[in-house]
């Protein structure tokens, strides 16, 4: 029978997408459907004096208009935050309400004040324009550093200094002592700029209440429909969970931005019951820019201390994290537990201290965006390392080799305990750098760089060796860190009477190819053709429960849950097979899709055992019929993928424009089920990381206006901005999950950004350039060159 694991199987989900038959939320049309349009604040900070909806209500085709007052009167709550971080003194973080529609005061451009519902989309939009809101504009603060100043305007009246929390990790005294005795200290101060995730499918939601059976269905562009259902039912609308079905059908990309429970999901669900009609809302791109949670936005000062030999002795980090106007679902954990805990990097630094303050501002909420905290940690570390190499006149690769944690497999050698709470599972960090140097042909490129420099050409080489924590994660650990949810995954494996297999997973695919990768695992484990396996996800009605897809967790956690259920099927199947073959269970082996009595040719096929389980006429005594098992898998640890990315750039001396000439990536994501899909994930991640380095930035003006909130103004990488990527991998299996996998969704984004910036700084280092602020626009680069 086929061995699918490790093969570049073409994706089974592709057919519907390439033929235009994908079913995304906005494609769904229900009988009697109405269309919602949100009236959003054009101001970052303003008091609402009054809202006049009369002209809108009088328009033909308008079904209803709801304001914050209606929401407040109906007893509905705002959307909750799913992660709690405490102040250093033990106080609970400040957690101001995030209402579905605001009634008193708007706190960012795009804050919704009213919802118009009409018979068609255009009428709803026309009516929204007819609503008159009397705003009293107030002073806004958009910058995290300014927001903590004593006289800054307050985003929430009861949050002094706009401080949500302050937080620290690591040994401060030891770090201060290490830095005091360091031979050399490299210091950088920078902003890790705010980004817009920009999944190409805008968010959308359809609420559908059916009075006849008192049941709600919410179709939504979500990465985790079950968590959305839980938050929607238990925290926002107060409706019974078993009365609500949440469906996340085909979803056009997420990158983190569709993890969170958004106000619009609750609004359409609530309104559909009020009106007893389906209500659809689809974001326009300009709305996405001001309402989809943004990413990054850290202001950081970081210092790395070295001894005389170039060994790292200490790392001290202070970060202000801009959280935006409200706490999005996972916002507090991103700059803390997904950032501070990664500051060990791949290095043996013996003393680390990180201090993070979370700050409210009059901007769109900030939450997890591809990588979430880990790109910020990696950027900080890898910029420090390349800068230190320049300062100490060392080769950046050599400096890394000198400081790497030695190889450990997590089985024969224990995991590596960091100074910042985590225990790495397994790693061979030298190997990825060595391989990446080979792929690059490092010495040759350095020579070319020197030659080019003589001719006035500006070529640079930049490194990044990263680690990330994925497969999020053990519930007990994340619970101790403030998560208000468990982070296991569920899987049901239902063997049909004919031996065909339906798998219900709580992971959610929105581009990752689970329908293929998961089927490869199932088919291999059962020894059956892949065509006999169906992967079902995204519907709370068919999938028992799920924690969804983010943090590169689907295969490591969701795939492991599937394996658990598979093992239960095989265990039960062996009992049935033993009965049919008149042999003892211990005398059987299961391979190639059949149970065989060891040393004989007596066997029974998987399909025959399945049929017996459902037609149990001749059956083991006391054994239940059926072949259907559910499992929950709660991992023992995070997984820790790592890798090395090297960028080669050429800077135009006349214009400062950066050309990315080569992007080399050697990643280690543990075992690989489908190399084609893993490479694809790496490619996409690289593009987003490069996007941050060179092009992307959400820009607010002082008054809180988002000045580049469209695809016309916010620059994302296009095909002609990127080279062909050069990828390879090493394989260091994860020692604690049954597939040995670590996750590949975020690696590309985490590693690539500092590699590109390091390369540009390297290209310009002989001109005295030491640091550059992202994104590296031609103007910024040109100014730095010509200072």
């Amino acid at each position: 029978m086929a061995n699918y694991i490790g093969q570049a199987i073409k994706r089974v989900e592709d057919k519907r997408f390439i033929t235009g038959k994908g079913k995304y939320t906005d494609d769904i049309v229900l009988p009697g459907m109405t269309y919602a349009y949100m009236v959003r604040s054009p101001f970052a900070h303003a008091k609402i004096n009054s809202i006049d909806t009369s002209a809108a209500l009088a328009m033909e085709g308008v079904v209803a208009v709801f304001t914050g007052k209606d929401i407040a009167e109906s007893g509905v709550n705002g959307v909750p935050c799913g992660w709690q971080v405490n102040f250093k003194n033990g106080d609970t973080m400040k957690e101001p309400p995030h209402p579905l529609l605001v009634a008193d005061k708007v706190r960012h451009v795009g804050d919704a004040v009213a919802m118009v519902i009409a018979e068609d989309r255009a009428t709803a939009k026309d009516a929204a324009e007819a609503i008159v809101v009397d705003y009293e504009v107030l002073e806004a603060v958009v910058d995290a550093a300014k927001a903590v100043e004593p006289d800054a305007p307050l985003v929430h009246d009861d949050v002094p200094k706009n401080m949500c929390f302050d937080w620290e990790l690591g040994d401060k005294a030891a770090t201060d002592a290490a830095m005091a005795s360091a031979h050399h200290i490299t210091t950088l101060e920078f902003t890790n700029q705010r980004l817009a995730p920009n999944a190409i499918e805008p968010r959308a939601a359809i609420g559908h209440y059916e009075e006849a059976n008192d049941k709600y269905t919410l179709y939504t562009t979500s990465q985790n429909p079950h968590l959305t259902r839980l938050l929607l039912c238990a925290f926002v609308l107060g409706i019974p969970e078993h009365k609500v079905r949440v469906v996340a059908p085909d979803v056009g990309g997420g990158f983190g931005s569709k993890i969170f429970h958004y106000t619009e999901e609750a609004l359409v669900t609530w309104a559909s019951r009020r009106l007893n009609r389906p209500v659809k809302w689809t974001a326009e791109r300009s709305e996405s820019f001001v309402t989809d949670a943004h990413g990054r936005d850290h202001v950081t000062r970081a210092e790395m201390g070295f001894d005389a030999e170039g060994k790292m002795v200490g790392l001290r980090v202070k970060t202000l994290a801009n959280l935006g106007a409200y706490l999005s679902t996972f916002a507090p954990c991103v700059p803390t537990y997904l950032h501070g805990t990664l500051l060990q990097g791949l290095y043996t630094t013996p003393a680390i201290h990180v201090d993070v303050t979370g700050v409210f501002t009059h901007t769109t909420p900030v939450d997890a965006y591809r990588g979430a905290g880990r790109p910020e940690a990696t950027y900080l570390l890898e910029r420090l390392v390349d800068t230190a190499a320049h300062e100490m006149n060392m080769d950046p690769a050599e400096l890394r080799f000198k400081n790497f944690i030695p190889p450990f497999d997590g089985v024969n050698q224990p995991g590596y305990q960091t100074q910042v709470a985590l225990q790495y599972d397994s790693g061979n960090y030298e190997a990825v750098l060595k391989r990446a140097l080979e792929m690059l042909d490092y010495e040759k490129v350095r020579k070319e760089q020197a030659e080019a420099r003589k001719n006035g050409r500006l070529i640079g080489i930049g490194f990044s060796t990263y680690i990330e924590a994925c497969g999020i994660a053990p519930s007990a650990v994340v619970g101790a860190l403030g998560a208000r949810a468990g982070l296991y995954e569920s899987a049901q494996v239902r063997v049909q009477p004919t031996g065909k297999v339906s798998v219900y997973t709580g992971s959610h695919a929105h581009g990752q190819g689970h329908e293929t990768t998961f089927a490869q695992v199932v088919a291999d484990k059962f020894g059956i053709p892949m065509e006999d396996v169906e992967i079902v996800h995204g519907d709370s009605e068919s999938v028992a429960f799920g924690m969804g897809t983010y943090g590169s967790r689907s295969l490591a956690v969701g795939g492991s849950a599937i394996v658990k259920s598979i093992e239960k099927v095989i265990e039960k199947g062996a009992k049935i097979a033993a009965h049919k073959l008149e042999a003892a269970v211990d005398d059987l082996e299961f391979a190639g899709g059949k149970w065989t009595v060891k040393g004989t040719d007596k066997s029974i096929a998987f399909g025959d055992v399945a049929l017996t389980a459902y037609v149990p006429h001749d059956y083991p005594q006391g054994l239940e019929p059926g072949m259907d098992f559910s499992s929950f898998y709660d991992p023992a640890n995070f997984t820790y993928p790592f890798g090395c990315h090297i960028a080669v750039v050429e800077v135009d001396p006349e214009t400062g424009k950066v050309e990315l000439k080569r992007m080399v990536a050697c990643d280690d994501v543990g075992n690989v089920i489908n190399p084609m899909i893993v490479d694809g994930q790496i490619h996409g991640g690289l593009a987003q990381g490069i996007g941050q380095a060179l092009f992307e930035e959400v820009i607010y003006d002082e008054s809180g206006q988002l000045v580049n909130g469209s695809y016309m103004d916010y620059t994302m990488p296009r095909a002609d901005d990127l080279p062909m990527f050069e990828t390879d991998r090493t394989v260091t299996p994860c020692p604690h999950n049954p597939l040995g996998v670590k996750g590949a969704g975020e690696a590309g984004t985490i590693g690539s950004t500092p590699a590109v910036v390091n390369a540009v700084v390297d290209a310009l280092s002989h001109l005295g350039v030491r640091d550059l602020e992202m994104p590296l626009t031609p103007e910024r680069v040109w100014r730095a060159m010509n200072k």
Partner: protein
Amino acid sequence: MKEITVTVNGEQHTASVEARTLLVHFIRETLNLTGTHIGCDTSNCGACTILLDGKSVKSCTVLAVQANGKQIATVEGLAAGGELHPLQEGFKENHGLHCGFCTPGMLMRAVELLEKNPNPSEEEIRWGIAGNLCRCTGYNNIVKSIQYAAAKMRGDELPDTEPEFV
């Protein structure tokens, strides 16, 4: 309201539309051809790309009334007689899509690109699809997909895509 007649994927449709109706809304909502997507509101993403009289256009930048009397081709019409178009095959063989949202627009853009230039260089492909945004793939495999289709349409030997394991 104005009555228009268009031929979509070879089939004639007559409908009355508001003067302000965008062609993409007409295609998605009146004709129920939801393979054509909307990703932005500034004609920058290309998810709505279709062929209008054989020329690739962003259907969010055309009024439905402007399409009156014209030929429209959408992704739904690409697989003739159930046989995948070489571009569709190329995207599948080369993992040219992840979430699939930009894919119909990419495909329709590439149809015209290869019609005009059957043997494009990598650079010509990259320039040729620069009006279409993809956030998932980093374009690497989209470029390869189009190269594959170009080779197939020319009758050349196909690039190796790691054989499907049976």
